[in-house]
C-alpha cells in the first residue's frame, strides 16, 4: 500500500509539472488574443500612461517567458498567483474566498451522489428486470440526458411554488466565524448549529440540481457493475458454499462492483466543480465556478491561469484519491504495484 501511495504521489507531481506547462500555454494564448484586458479593467477613460504603468506592474509588457517565469516565481516563493484584473486583488485571495465554498458544495454533492447513486443502483440490480428496476433505469436515463441547468430551473420553480427551501443565496456568516472559508464547516467549528442548519437548508437546491445527473449516471454504472458481477463465478461459488444472501449482496457482490463505480464516481465529482457555475449562478451560490466564469469572460489573464491551475489540481487530487480508493478495494492493483 505504501508503494501504491508513492506511485500516486509521483503521478500527482507529474500532473503539477503538466499544469505548469499548461499555464505557459494559457499565458501564450492570452497574449495572443486581441483586446487589452488591462485597459478594460481600468475603466473607459483611463489615460494611456496609467495603463502602461499597470501593464508593467503586471509584467504584461515583458516577453512571454519572462512573464511566465515571474509568475512562476511568485507562485512558488509566496503562493502569489498574480493580480486579478477582475477583482483587483491577488488571485490567491480570490481562490481562498471562493474555492472553499465550492468545495463544500461539491462535498455535500459528492456524499449525496455516492449514497443515493449506489443505493439506487443496488436496488435496481437486486430487482433486476422488475418494474422497479425498469422505472429506475428509465428515470436515470432521463437524468443523464438532462442538462444540469434544466434541473436547476425546474427545482427553482418547484421550490418557489411550494416554498419549501430557500431559492437562493446563503446566510451571511459573521466575519469572526471564518476559519476555513467553508460556510457550514465554519459554523460547526464555532458550534453554531442553528446557522449550520440554515446553511444546509440553503444548500439543498443547488446540491440537488448539481447532483441529480451524476446520481442517475452513477446508478446506471453501479447497476451495470452489479449485474455483471452477479454472473461471476465467485458469486455462484459463494452462494453454493452457503454465504447468506445479505452478505452475498452487500459484501461479496458490492465490493468488486464498487471498483468501476468508484472510478466513474471520481470523474463525476471532479467534473462537478467545473460544471457547477450554472447552478451557482442560478442559485446565487458564491462559489469558485462562478468566479471562473467571470474571469474567463473578463479574459483576466492571471485569473484564467489560476483557474485552470486550480481545476487541474483538483482533477489530479480527485483522481489520485480514486486511485487510492481503487487500490484499497482491489487487492489485484495494490499487490501488483507494491510487490
Amino acid at each position: 500500500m505504501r508503494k501504491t501511495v508513492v506511485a500516486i504521489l509521483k503521478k500527482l507531481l507529474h500532473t503539477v509539472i503538466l499544469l505548469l506547462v499548461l499555464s505557459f500555454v494559457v499565458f501564450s494564448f492570452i497574449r495572443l488574443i486581441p483586446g487589452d484586458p488591462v485597459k478594460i479593467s481600468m475603466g473607459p477613460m483611463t489615460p494611456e500612461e496609467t495603463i502602461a504603468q499597470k501593464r508593467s506592474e503586471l509584467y504584461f509588457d515583458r516577453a512571454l517567458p519572462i512573464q511566465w517565469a515571474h509568475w512562476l516565481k511568485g507562485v512558488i516563493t509566496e503562493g502569489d498567483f498574480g493580480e486579478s484584473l477582475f477583482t483587483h486583488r491577488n488571485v490567491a485571495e480570490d481562490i481562498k474566498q471562493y474555492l472553499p465554498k465550492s468545495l463544500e458544495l461539491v462535498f455535500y454533492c459528492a456524499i449525496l451522489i455516492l449514497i443515493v447513486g449506489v443505493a439506487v443502483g443496488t436496488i435496481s440490480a437486486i430487482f433486476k428486470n422488475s418494474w422497479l428496476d425498469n422505472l429506475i433505469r428509465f428515470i436515470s436515463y432521463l437524468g443523464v440526458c438532462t442538462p444540469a441547468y434544466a434541473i436547476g430551473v425546474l427545482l427553482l420553480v418547484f421550490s418557489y411554488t411550494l416554498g419549501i427551501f430557500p431559492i437562493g443565496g446563503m446566510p451571511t456568516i459573521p466575519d469572526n466565524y471564518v476559519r476555513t472559508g467553508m460556510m457550514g464547516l465554519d459554523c460547526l467549528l464555532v458550534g453554531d448549529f442553528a446557522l449550520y442548519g440554515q446553511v444546509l437548508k440553503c444548500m439543498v437546491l443547488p446540491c440537488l440540481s448539481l447532483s441529480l445527473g451524476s446520481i442517475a449516471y452513477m446508478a446506471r454504472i453501479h447497476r451495470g457493475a452489479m449485474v455483471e458481477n452477479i454472473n461471476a463465478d465467485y458469486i455462484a461459488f459463494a452462494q453454493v458454499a452457503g454465504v447468506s444472501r445479505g452478505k452475498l449482496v452487500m459484501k461479496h457482490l458490492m465490493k468488486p462492483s464498487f471498483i468501476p463505480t468508484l472510478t466513474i464516481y471520481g470523474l463525476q465529482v471532479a467534473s462537478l466543480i467545473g460544471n457547477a457555475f450554472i447552478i451557482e449562478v442560478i442559485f446565487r451560490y458564491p462559489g469558485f465556478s462562478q468566479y471562473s466564469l467571470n474571469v474567463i469572460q473578463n479574459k483576466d489573464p492571471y485569473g484564467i491561469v489560476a483557474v485552470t491551475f486550480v481545476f487541474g489540481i483538483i482533477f489530479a487530487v480527485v483522481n489520485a484519491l480514486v486511485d487510492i480508493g481503487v487500490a484499497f478495494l482491489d487487492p489485484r492493483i495494490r499487490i501488483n504495484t507494491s510487490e
Partner: protein
Amino acid sequence: MEKKNLALNIENLSVKYKIYEGILEVIPGLSMHVEQAERVGLIGETGCGKTTVLKSAAAVLQSPPAIVHKDAIEVCGVSVDGKKGLRSVRRNVSMIFQDPSSSLNPTLKISTQMTDILKSQFPGKRKAEYGQMMLDALDSVSMPAPERVLGSYPVQLSGGMRQRVCIAMALMKDTNLMLADEPTTALDVTIEEQILDLLDKLVREKKKSLILVSHALGAIRKITDRVYVMYAGNVVEVGKTKEVFEHPHHPYTIGLMAATPKLTGSGIADGIAGDIPSYINPPKGCRFASRCPRCTQECLEAPPILADMEDGRQVACHHAGEEAAV
C-alpha cells in the same frame, strides 16, 4: 432404483438461454442420477452443457438468461422447487468451479470469504473458533503455510493453491453431494494430479457422492465409477467408466477415445470433423448427425432416445451396437 436413496436425481431437464441473437436450446431434455457415495463422471466437448447441468443441480443458474424446465431435480430426496426447497438443496450440495481464479472473490481476503461461509453454517461461534476451523479446513487439503494463505487475497496465491482453497471451502459444508466442474483444467499436469488425488481421497474418506466434469478423460477414468458422455446438451452414453472407455458404443464416444493421443505412441485417429451444431435452431434429429459416420435418414429426422443396451450400458443412437461401422 429407490429414488429416496439417490444423492442427485435429475429428470428431463431442459435449459434454454435467452441471448441477444435468440434462444439457445442448450439442454433439450436430460436425465441423470447419482447414487449415494457414487462417483460419476461427465464428459463432452466444450460447450456441450456440462456446467449448465451442474449449475442447475446446485440451483445457481442465473435466470435470466437461463430458462429452466424440468420434471424434477432432487438432491438427497429434496426437490429444488420453491424457496424452501432451494435453500435446503443448496445446503446439500457443494460445488467446485472450473476456474479457481474466477471462483474466489478477488476483493476479499481468503479468511473473510471462509468466515462468511462458516458463519452461515455454524452461526454464533467465537472468532478464534472460526479461525481454528479454517486452519483445519486448509490442513485437510494439505495446504502449505495455511496461516499465510488465510491472510492473503486470491491474487497472491498460485493456481494450485487457489484450487485447494476452493476445495477446502466446498468441503466446509457437510454435504452429501460434491459437484466438481473441471477442477483441474486451469492447472499444469503435475499440479493437476495432486489436486485430483486430493479430491479423490477426501470424497472417499467422507463417503460423498461426486460428479466430476473434466476434459481430461484420464482423470475421469481414474476417479469415477460411472460416466455420462454428453454431446450438444444430450447424454449420448452412460455406463461404468472402465467399460465405456474400453468399449465405447456411441459413435461420438468412439471418436473421442480414438482421437485422444496415447502414451503408447500408436498414432492418432483422424478425430471427428466439424463442430457442435448451433443451439439456436438445433437440428431436429440427432444432434450428432452432421458429424456422424453412421448418419442415415432416420438420424436426421428423429432424435434418438437413451436406450438400455444388454451390457448395462445406455446409448442414445439409432445405430447403437454397430461399432463395426467406425
